[in-house]
């Protein structure tokens, strides 16, 4: 199996995976996930942070099985196809902070690139500004890449080191089984649960987990990446990854339409606000951070499943970033940006530009 040609590396492979995600995400929404949030990597990691009490925003607390599935599905695929390569050491602390600010930007917009696509496919016009911001942020990142920006080489490491994030995910799944939600209770054992708001809305556990595993598996094979889609087009005029991202949006739009979930407009969209400048700049900060870190939040999970310890550090940065965003009033709500969201964005841009300008390593 290991040396079999990777059928997902071709054009139809990546388009097929985009179509698959475009079908599954709206179905997850139909089965209980929040509006235009069939899958949102940033929101779901934020919910995990809440369930663990890293922040106490009581409407966004749930151990999302989709995230666990993404990592473990990728791990499974990586082992089956002999692509599990434990590696780390490419400026992990920098990746941690990129993860923190990627999350802060995403929570100003209210979604990661995956959700920006799904919001658009659900008729949320505010997502257009988010997607434009994403393109802008990635474009800034490509200028750094052209100027020689890179975080240096990784090194091989112990197999067990590559297992750290998959083991954490398995542990979270264990907690979910040991401390399941109790009707009307905001806490079960060590886990916090939401009684209202997006955190209280979720598809049945095994369906969420199954879909997560399937997408994790397919995305590992196809290298699906929403940031890479834009980056490769801007840098090389290459449309390979972009075709998958576009396939996701078009398919999700059709499926939303069929399920009666397509509701065009700007006002009153689920878990969204209409402050367009901040929609744009929030996603721009995220896009820049993803570009500097080499992958969208989904791709970072899939890479973590393949044994990439640096991607795992980025994921931890995002989870911690979610805690920071909600504890200090940086995250937006449907009412608009949080009290300290705008200064946080400015600091985030400052940090990312500092990283972009200073980390140019001559590769011999």
């Amino acid at each position, binding site marked *: 199996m290991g040396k079999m040609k*990777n059928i997902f*590396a071709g054009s139809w492979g990546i388009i097929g995976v985009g179509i698959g995600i475009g079908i599954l995400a709206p179905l997850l929404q139909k089965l209980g996930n929040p509006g235009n949030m069939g899958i949102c990597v940033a929101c779901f990691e934020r919910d995990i942070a809440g369930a663990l009490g890293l922040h106490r925003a009581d409407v966004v607390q749930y151990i999302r099985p989709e995230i666990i599935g993404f990592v473990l599905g990728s791990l499974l695929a990586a082992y089956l*196809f002999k*692509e599990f*390569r434990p*590696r780390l050491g*490419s400026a992990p602390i920098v990746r941690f902070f990129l993860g923190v600010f990627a999350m802060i930007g995403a929570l100003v917009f209210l979604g990661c690139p995956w959700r920006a696509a799904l919001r658009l496919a659900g008729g949320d016009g505010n997502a257009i500004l988010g997607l434009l911001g994403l393109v802008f942020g990635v474009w800034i990142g490509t200028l750094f*890449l*052209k100027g020689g920006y*890179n975080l240096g*080489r*990784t*090194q*091989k490491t112990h197999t067990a080191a590559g297992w750290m994030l998959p083991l954490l995910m398995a542990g979270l799944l264990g907690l979910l089984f040991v401390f399941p939600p109790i009707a009307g209770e905001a806490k079960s054992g060590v886990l916090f649960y939401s009684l209202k708001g997006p955190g209280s809305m979720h598809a049945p556990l095994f369906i969420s987990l199954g879909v997560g595993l399937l997408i994790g598996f397919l995305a590992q094979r196809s*290298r699906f990446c929403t940031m*890479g889609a834009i*980056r*490769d087009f801007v*840098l*090389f005029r*290459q449309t*390979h990854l972009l075709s998958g991202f576009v396939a996701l949006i078009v398919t999700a739009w059709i499926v939303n339409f069929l399920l009666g979930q397509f509701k065009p407009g700007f006002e009153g969209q689920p878990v969204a606000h209409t402050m367009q400048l901040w929609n744009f700049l929030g996603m721009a900060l995220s896009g820049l951070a993803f570009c500097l870190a*080499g*992958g969208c939040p989904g791709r970072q999970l899939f890479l973590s499943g393949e044994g*990439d310890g640096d991607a795992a550090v980025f994921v931890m940065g995002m989870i911690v970033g979610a805690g920071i965003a909600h504890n200090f009033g940086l995250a937006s709500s449907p009412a608009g940006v949080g009290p300290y969201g705008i200064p946080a964005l400015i600091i985030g841009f400052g940090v990312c530009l500092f990283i972009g300008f200073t980390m140019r390593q001559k*590769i*011999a």
Partner: protein
Amino acid sequence: MAKTIDARGLSCPQPVLMTLDGIKAGNDDELIVLVDSDASKENVSRAATSKGWMLAGISEESGVYRIAIRKG
């Protein structure tokens, strides 16, 4: 002896950028690119063929892919 581009330990898009720089430099009709992930192997192959270069061969030794590309 073809020029060797060592992109081991680097993740996307660095291996592709380095390969394209090598192609653009125009000094060589054949290049060897070393990468150590399957995604990089696919990306480098795709980038080279999109520039009209041919894949002359890919071999693997202890987790490192040696990709030989030749001007078409």
